[in-house]
């Protein structure tokens, strides 16, 4: 379409009975640009309510809600409809800008780049990390002697693969990989099969015992030397990193301060796996005997791993891992109330702590998803809805 001339603009003003003296001299003649209007072959525009500036990624497979990830955070994307039409105009000046620049052009031919009747808003959300563990558990690493790896047809995942499949930011994913003690084997992220992991841990704890090393000062070099013939050196180092805190002494030698709580917890898991439920006092006895010399077992080491029932006679304990529970809030609560009708805050907290959004408390979650009552003078929580 031909561009409008000053004469045409003035004629329109006259017809509209607007007084040019009351207007700024510059006029924007708005027309739709070649890409506006959408359709085949045209650009798709998306308006996003934005409050930071950095590189972003939109993630989500077909059946997942889209999330937007910055380098270190994850946001839900929510569409907000407006009954109005939103046109985006490049190069359109505000009155201030026009006043500030008196030499500005008299006619500005502005092309509308695109338009929309909705926009997207971001809301910080928990990264969806459960899938990460699920992907890596498809093919846990069982050690070099395992036949599985050679013949395995399962997918193995590189960092890039995980970034494209998991709805979380890069930093959140890398952090979670560390939390779950994943390691890179031949360029792929792997999680150790529990049996193999315990085998490695056992090698180390037995060596610590036979060498009478203090638990706070386990030498890396000696471990690699003594155990190198039994297991790959990378695996020995990996297990030390998983269950110990690495440090370097003044002489430059690498040591590990073994993590008592984590080791006791792993051994408890090994024991609890073997039956549905245990007599609590029997378990505590066997557990203490099973941990390395010098370590003390405590029930609070098992938060989010095991559930103690103090109301049954005798008292019992069973394996209940928070990472095996649903990721969605409502589903998680349904699952927990299906396992036990009434929970004290102390008992339920380890199983809902990970659901807390930024600045949200466990108390707030309980208020939203549970109903409280008193039982024998103690506050307990149960489901808001009837459990079938």
């Amino acid at each position, binding site marked *: *379409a031909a561009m409008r001339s000053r004469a045409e603009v003035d004629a329109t003003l006259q017809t509209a009975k607007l007084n040019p003296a009351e207007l*700024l001299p510059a006029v924007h003649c*708005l027309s739709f640009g070649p890409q506006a209007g959408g359709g085949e072959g045209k650009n798709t525009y*998306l308006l996003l309510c934005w409050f930071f500036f950095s590189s972003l990624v939109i993630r989500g497979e077909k059946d997942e809600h889209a999330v937007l990830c910055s380098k270190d955070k994850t946001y839900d*994307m929510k569409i907000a409809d407006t009954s109005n*039409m939103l*046109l985006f105009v*490049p190069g359109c000046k505000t009155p201030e800008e026009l006043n500030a620049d008196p030499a500005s052009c008299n006619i500005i031919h502005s092309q509308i780049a695109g338009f929309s009747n909705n926009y997207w808003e971001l809301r910080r959300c928990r990264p969806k990390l459960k899938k990460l563990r699920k992907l890596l558990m498809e093919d846990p690493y069982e050690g070099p002697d395992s036949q599985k790896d050679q013949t395995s047809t399962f997918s193995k995942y590189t960092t890039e693969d995980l970034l494209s499949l998991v709805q979380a930011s890069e930093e959140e994913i890398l952090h979670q990989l560390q939390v779950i003690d994943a390691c890179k084997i031949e360029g792929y992220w792997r999680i150790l099969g529990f049996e193999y992991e315990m085998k490695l841990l056992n090698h180390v704890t037995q060596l610590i015992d036979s060498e009478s090393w203090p638990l706070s000062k386990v030498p890396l070099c000696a471990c690699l030397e003594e155990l190198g013939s039994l297991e790959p050196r990378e695996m020995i180092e990996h297990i030390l990193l998983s269950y110990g805190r690495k440090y370097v002494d003044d002489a430059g030698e690498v040591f590990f301060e073994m993590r008592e709580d984590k080791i006791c917890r792993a051994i408890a898991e090994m024991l609890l796996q073997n039956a549905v439920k245990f007599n609590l006092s029997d378990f505590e006895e066997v557990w203490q005997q099973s941990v390395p010399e010098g370590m003390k077992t405590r029930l609070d080491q098992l938060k989010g791993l095991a559930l103690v029932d103090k109301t049954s006679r005798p008292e019992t304990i069973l394996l209940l891992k928070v990472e095996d529970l649903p990721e969605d809030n409502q589903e998680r609560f349904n699952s927990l109330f299906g396992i036990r009708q009434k929970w004290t805050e102390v008992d339920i907290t380890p199983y809902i702590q990970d659901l807390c959004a930024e600045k949200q408390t466990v108390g707030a979650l309980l208020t939203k998803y549970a109903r409280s009552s008193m039982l024998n003078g103690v506050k307990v929580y149960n489901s808001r809805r009837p459990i079938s």
Partner: protein
Amino acid sequence: PCLSPSSSTGALAQWVLVELQGEVEPRQSGDLAGSLLGDLHYTREGVPVLIVGHHILYGKVVQLEKPFAVLVKEGGAPQPSPGGPHSCYTVTALIKTKLLFKTRPKPIITHVPKKV
């Protein structure tokens, strides 16, 4: 899926949002591309005035509390949601200002032609 900053020069282009009531439809049943929308004037007090067809719209300049980013996905078939394994958006511009036209359009009444 990916989204990248538009240019390596750093600063994002600043665009303006024009918010209108109702829908925008081409006069002829053709494509909107290339067709005129109208003339945008400002009064000396800074009030935006938009003349669209036979209507005058008065609006106001609003500084957005939360700016908008304009993301663009090049060409191709439009997708209903931004997700999907191959969606790649570029951050193309930032919008901090909008011209909000909420008032009912005032029709422009032209002279009634004299009967011949």
